[in-house]
């Protein structure tokens, strides 16, 4: 469960990226965050991942208050999240297996259990059999799926994705979104920040529209038109 109540974020340069944003996301729900560049989508994800702290307001993720969570509890909190980036952020000198296993290594999972879970995650994204390859030996779409496998291998409660389909062709983008939907179906809360309205319209999921740091039309906003966020 994610709850944002009148949350604002002002960066050190004085820019107010989020202004009194209020919304909630239930457990197991898949939600799209849309809006123009600079609307505040990435800021919401940064706040959820605790890469930034809210300036004002009440932000709670799975019972953790993001404004007051102590730094020493940050690693344990982040282990409950899965994060997918547009540019994958894979470690180029490590094979696929090691990239996917990273969250499990950090959590101290035993090698046999790690092996089982990494293979299961790779199977989910259709990359079983490619665990010994380096990221550079994979296509862009496969690299993105490795990033997704890494994000879900730790069985996170919340999966956040920042423009995950930005570098993918439409077919691959839909494939990635179907993966996210499958995770939501098994209880993972999925938040996808995207300005790809083709993808948004393809899935009948709730959409939170941001404009100039504010949530438009409340948290139950209707789908934006195809031109609204371009």
């Amino acid at each position, binding site marked *: 469960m994610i709850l944002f109540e009148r949350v604002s974020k002002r960066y050190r340069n004085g820019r107010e990226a989020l202004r009194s944003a209020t919304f909630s996301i239930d457990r197991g729900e898949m939600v799209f965050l849309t809006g123009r560049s600079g609307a505040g989508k990435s800021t919401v*994800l940064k706040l959820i*991942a605790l890469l930034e702290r809210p300036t004002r307001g009440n932000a709670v993720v799975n019972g953790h208050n993001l404004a007051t969570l102590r730094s020493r509890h940050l*690693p344990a909190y*982040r282990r409950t*999240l899965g*994060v997918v980036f547009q540019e994958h*952020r894979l470690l180029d000198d490590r094979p696929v297996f090691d990239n996917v296993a990273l969250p499990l290594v950090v959590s*101290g999972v035993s090698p046999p259990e790690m092996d089982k879970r990494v293979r299961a995650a790779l199977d989910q994204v259709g990359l079983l059999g490619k665990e010994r390859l380096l990221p550079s030996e994979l296509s862009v779409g496969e690299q993105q799926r490795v990033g997704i496998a890494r994000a879900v291998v730790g069985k996170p409660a919340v999966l956040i994705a*920042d423009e995950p389909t930005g570098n993918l062709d439409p077919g691959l983008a839909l494939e990635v979104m179907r993966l996210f939907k499958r995770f939501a179906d098994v209880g993972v809360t999925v938040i996808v920040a995207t300005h790809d309205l083709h993808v948004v319209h393809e899935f009948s999921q709730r959409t939170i529209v941001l404009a100039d740091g504010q949530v438009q039309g409340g948290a139950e906003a209707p789908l934006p038109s195809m031109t609204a966020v371009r």
Partner: protein
Amino acid sequence: MIAGYFTHHAQALLGSLGRLCRAPFATALTLLVIGLALALPLALALFVSNAMAATGGFTGAVDVSVYFKPDTALSRVQQLARDTRARAGVATVQVISSADALAEFRQYSGFGAALDALGSNPLPNVLHVRPAPDASGAADLDALRHYLAAWPEVDTVQVDAEWVLRFNAILGLLRRVLGIAAVLLGAGVLAVIGNTIRLEIQGRRPEIEVVRLVGGSTGFVRRPFLYAGMLYGLGGALLAWGLVVLAVLVLRTPVATLAQLYGSRYALSGPGVREVAVVLGAGVALGWLGAWAAAARHLRRIEPRA
């Protein structure tokens, strides 16, 4: 849980070792700098210990000779010898009677006929007093000399310690120089390892960001760098040991030849277990400290980007 903890450490250690091996030239250069910096104080320490060994140490060389007046009876000399033995700070007291001294002189000097020509024994009774090892300092020797000279039967008290005291002072100075060199070169090792780890942290910034993002704690992120620092320190110390052993091997024969010319069987000795343990321990400790300082300073600045 405990097995997982040790697995983490083993992975961090092996990972750090692997990274050092994958960059052999850079690693070798760093190890050479550390090795030379650690070899210098080790060599100096070895020089001091060899100098002490070559001279038989300080304590055995200090002697106080007490020459009695010609008319002093041997029984009185023996009484005074017993008194001296009972005194604190005295290791041994040897009585050399005038008769024994004359016999010895006759045997070794070759002046037997000349001595026969003398009407009486011209040599005095003598005490050889050797101070205890912990009472061989200048102040102790001076107090002993005053005690012995106060007896009315004593003609002269001769303290054969001046050269020892000078030698002692030189070795004291060398020890101080050794201490200063060790501190300065240790600081150099710290700086070298700290800078190497700083560069490594910068080179692995993307990896650190991802590890932090997936929930890696500061300790988890720091661990491989601490192991890398310790490996640098240990490798440098092993190299320092090897360099010094090599130097000893090269110098052993000429030193033995020189010693033989002075009638000695002295042989140059290499670093012992204690010295090796100290230099290896210092290397590992300096490596850990340098890496910790660099990691504490530079890892704090690396936070994941979205």
